[in-house]
């Protein structure tokens, strides 16, 4: 967490807000996903003895479906927050803030004897 994040007004620090957003959005996404999937798919159809040797009741199927979607969404939203909170905007390897793009010049400019030859 960088300094500027802590100074944003509010009762919660940025980190808490991030977690809140991740958990809540993932929950919403998982709810929608569960509705859609089980509107189209009969949980009885998941009972394939060839894959699962025991029978899974509809309640367990609904719950596992929801939890699975929740975990996947949580993974996606958590990673998304991590990716946008870290990265180039946060600056420099040595913690010096954002740096300008490196300077480029003609190699011979300061080194008149440098014969680039096959490097050209």
């Amino acid at each position, binding site marked *: 967490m960088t300094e500027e994040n802590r100074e*944003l007004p509010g009762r919660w620090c940025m980190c808490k807000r991030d977690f809140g957003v991740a958990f809540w959005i993932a929950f919403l996404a998982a709810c929608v996903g569960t509705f859609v999937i089980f509107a189209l798919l009969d949980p009885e159809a998941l009972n394939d003895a060839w894959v699962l040797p025991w029978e899974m009741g509809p309640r367990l199927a609904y719950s596992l479906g929801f939890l699975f979607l929740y975990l996947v969404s949580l993974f996606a939203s958590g990673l998304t927050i991590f990716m946008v909170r870290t*990265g180039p905007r946060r600056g*420099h390897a040595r913690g010096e803030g*954002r740096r300008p793009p490196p300077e480029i010049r003609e190699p011979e400019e300061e080194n008149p004897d440098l014969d680039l030859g096959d490097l050209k």
Partner: protein
Amino acid sequence: MTENSRTGDSLYRKEPKIYPRQVKGRFARLRVIAVWVLLGLYYVLPWITIGGKQSVLFDLPARKFYIFGFTFWPQDFVYLTLLLITAGLSLFFFTALAGRLWCGYACPQTVWTETFIWIERLIEGDRAKRMKLDKAPWNGEKILRKVGKQAAWILFAAWTGFTFVGFFSPIRELGHSVMSLSLGPWETFWIIFYSVATYGNAGFLREQVCKYMCPYARFQSAMFDKDTLIISYDVNRGEPRGGRRKKDDKESLGLGDCINCTLCVQVCPTGIDIRDGLQYECIACAACIDVCDQVMDKMGYEPGLVRYTTEHALKHNEGHVIRPRIMVYGALLLAILLGTIWSMANRVPLRADLIRDRNALYRELPGDVIENVYTLKITNMDDAPHSYRLTAVDNPQVEIDLDRPLDLAAEEVAGIIVRLRLPRAAGKGVQNVELELESVDSPEIRREITAKAMLPLGIGGR
């Protein structure tokens, strides 16, 4: 704190387009070899046939994966898990050992970008020519070169998309479908999807993927330690940097070895300056090592101003690349690899599940015999037909009756009705009956199955 730094985004500045300068040398050669091997495997493998089957084919509708003569079934899920664990561990191992080897040599983003840049260089010329061409007004030559490049890129991307789908749908038939314009809708969709992805990633996004989109780039620093081999600029030796003439005595000028030619920046595909220190944008392609070594050679200095080294080695002139972390990762990798090989070698190509008939507990037959009915789901995972025999282990009282002989074609799945008959005196309630399913022609293919047989409880004088 200023208003700007609070919002962050207002500091945003568009960075100039990167025209990486071509580089030759040890590491460039290594990467060319990696590109040839990896893309060679990708484009050639689906055309090779092993044992009458495409060498690598993921047949999703049939739920079977054919890989180098092995057939994997959904039940072989454990191998997929092992593969993922191995991939994860390898990433830890190689990152701890020598940083982002994956990014520099093996990542599809790098490999395809290399190829696209190679095509670009072939049609538009080297770095200076490309920069000039982009600045020039549109004229006949510019149109010709730009259209030519785009056409070559699109063709190559389309071939890539076609090959990708060829891993999921037999590629020879797919080729015929393309030729006769009779592709199915999903095949068409996925060919276009993968082609567009290749074109976008390798033609347009390039280093932006590594800088902004790739999570590994952000995580990898957690896998580093002070003994990890990383590409570093030797600050002590290089600074103070500055231009000079070849005959100049650098000591009297108070200069280090860096002549500030900025070639290391010009060859960098992500446009960073390695002299700023380790940066997460560095994909460890080692182009800066190659070019700096050549410049040092031309100036008559020792090579290795930019080199693979460790933080420890740079600071204290000592390095221990082999360390407990490496040994633990290495040992784990080796153990999983050996375990996988052992389990593949001892894989029994037969699966059998006995499922009780749900409609009846048991049936009483004349002569105090109790009958239980099951469905035997049997899968011959071998690529040859087999006949099997089902017997009760050490239990002569059990009589087994099947509704059809246990002859299965190669890769056949069958459901067979099994009737187990036991004398009433064999027990009360649930009894475990050990059965053995064995191939008649090759006895090493066998499975043991436990059948749960129901017998009368004997309550109320029955």
